[in-house]
């Protein structure tokens, strides 16, 4: 030991400094190489203000969503506190709670699965399409649909709750869910019955999806079965401007086509 110590002491300090610097350099080069993906990275100047705008708008969206969730909580509390003695009010509150739960306006936790989708690490062969090697909105939709078919009762993608009015779209090579911009990797979280994964993995649709994307292009599909998956509340709008509750307002056929005439702007008759 003392032999080693004395040998170390004999090394000039600049050599040690250089050695450490080279070691760090090696790590960084490795990290840099690892972070190279099939994605093109744009670095033009004109993008900078746009990126800033996007980041600002995203931050605003986060605040707006938090505000919506806080207000819904507040309203729920106010409703619960109102004249609890009246049977009618209690009954209405119970029905409202149940409706909110069914609508996805309440965060849920329970047993389930998380599937993680990541871009392929394979090099794109000459003549191959780069986009085939990236996770697309179609991939995310396929996984969400397969989870529903397997019996999932609540699903979220990167913390965006999937509801009956949720669109999942491509933007460039990334994905928009509920108009929120999501960056890879995409974590699709689902709450469901204990055999959710069994049903999913035996579904022909899911098997075909894995073959078409993971085996053919190297898209990474990993999963974890968890005892406690959290699916956040839907933080979007539930306002109806065109649809009215109930189906008994005006008499006449339920499908009165306005023919081939172009629809006038007044046809929408949004509710005030």
């Amino acid at each position, binding site marked *: 030991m003392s032999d080693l110590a004395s040998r170390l002491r004999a090394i000039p300090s*600049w050599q040690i400094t250089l050695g450490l*610097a080279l070691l760090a*350099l090696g790590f*960084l080069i490795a990290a840099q190489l690892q972070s190279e993906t099939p*994605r093109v*990275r*744009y670095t033009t100047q004109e*993008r900078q203000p*746009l*990126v800033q*705008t*996007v980041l600002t708008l*995203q931050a*605003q*969206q986060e605040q707006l969503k938090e505000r*919506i969730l806080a*207000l819904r909580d507040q309203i729920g509390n*106010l*409703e619960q506190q*109102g*004249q609890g003695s009246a049977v009618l*009010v209690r009954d*209405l509150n119970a029905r*409202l709670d149940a*409706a909110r739960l*069914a609508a*996805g306006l309440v965060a849920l936790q*329970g047993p389930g699965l998380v599937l993680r989708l990541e871009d392929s690490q394979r090099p794109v062969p000459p003549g191959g399409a780069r986009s085939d090697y990236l996770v697309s909105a179609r991939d995310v939709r396929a996984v969400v*649909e397969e989870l*529903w078919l397997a019996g*999932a*009762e609540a699903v979220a993608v990167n913390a965006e709750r*999937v509801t009956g009015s*949720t*669109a999942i779209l491509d*933007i460039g090579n*990334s994905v928009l869910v509920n*108009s929120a*911009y999501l*960056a890879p990797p995409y974590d699709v979280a689902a709450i*469901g*019955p204990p055999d959710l994964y069994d049903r999913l993995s035996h579904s022909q*649709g899911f098997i075909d999806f894995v073959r078409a994307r993971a085996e053919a292009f190297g898209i990474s599909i990993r999963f974890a079965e968890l005892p406690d998956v959290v699916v956040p509340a839907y*933080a979007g*709008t*539930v*306002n*109806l401007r*065109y*649809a009215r*509750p*109930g*189906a008994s307002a005006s008499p006449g056929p*339920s*499908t009165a*086509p*306005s023919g081939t005439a172009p*629809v006038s702007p007044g*046809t*929408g008759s949004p509710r005030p």
Partner: protein
Amino acid sequence: MRQARAQLTIAAVALLLGLLVVVQLRAQSAGTGLDTLSAQELTVLVANLNARNDVLRTEIASLEREATDLALSRARGETSLGQLQQDLARVRAWAGLDPVSGPGIRLTVSGPIAGPGVEEILNELRNAGAEALAVGPVRVVTGSVVAGPPGGLVIDGTALPDPFEVSAIGNPEVLTGALTRTGGLIAQLAATNPDLSLTLIPVDRLELPATGRDLAPAHGRPRL
């Protein structure tokens, strides 16, 4: 002399190290993924975020009004039955638990199309702001999926005939435009499948049924 060369080497390595640290940090901070978007795509994203934030602000305004009304009626010692009923009707209609009516579009689909193709149509209609959807006689709600091969489509356990209809309540012009625009979904589907016929008409008044599904969670519990 040897000392000077050593210092020079260290300086060079330090410079390279610094450069790489910066590059790496920038790559990491761009973990938002925005660096993979072109200027044009960023513009689309900005428009999308702006529209979405406006919708959220409207929702906040109406929630604030509701909260104020509730607080006021509570202070007056009144029951807020009317508000509760209104709220209940709205949430149930939105979730598909009650029937709804309103203007929109009806798309008649005839010919070979598989489940994912119909799902793409629904996705496009949702993106165009459809407030309620039905496929055939079945209301589309959270968890509804149109699945199966051409000729064997099923939604929520109900088999679909050929032809079948997709109904959407919303702004008829916006919904029509979203599907029929040049290079839009109808054009894409028609280009890849000449045997498929998609006919869209705006409708003044559609009536969509309530879902037959039980949407109450059986395995998840509310997170407090």
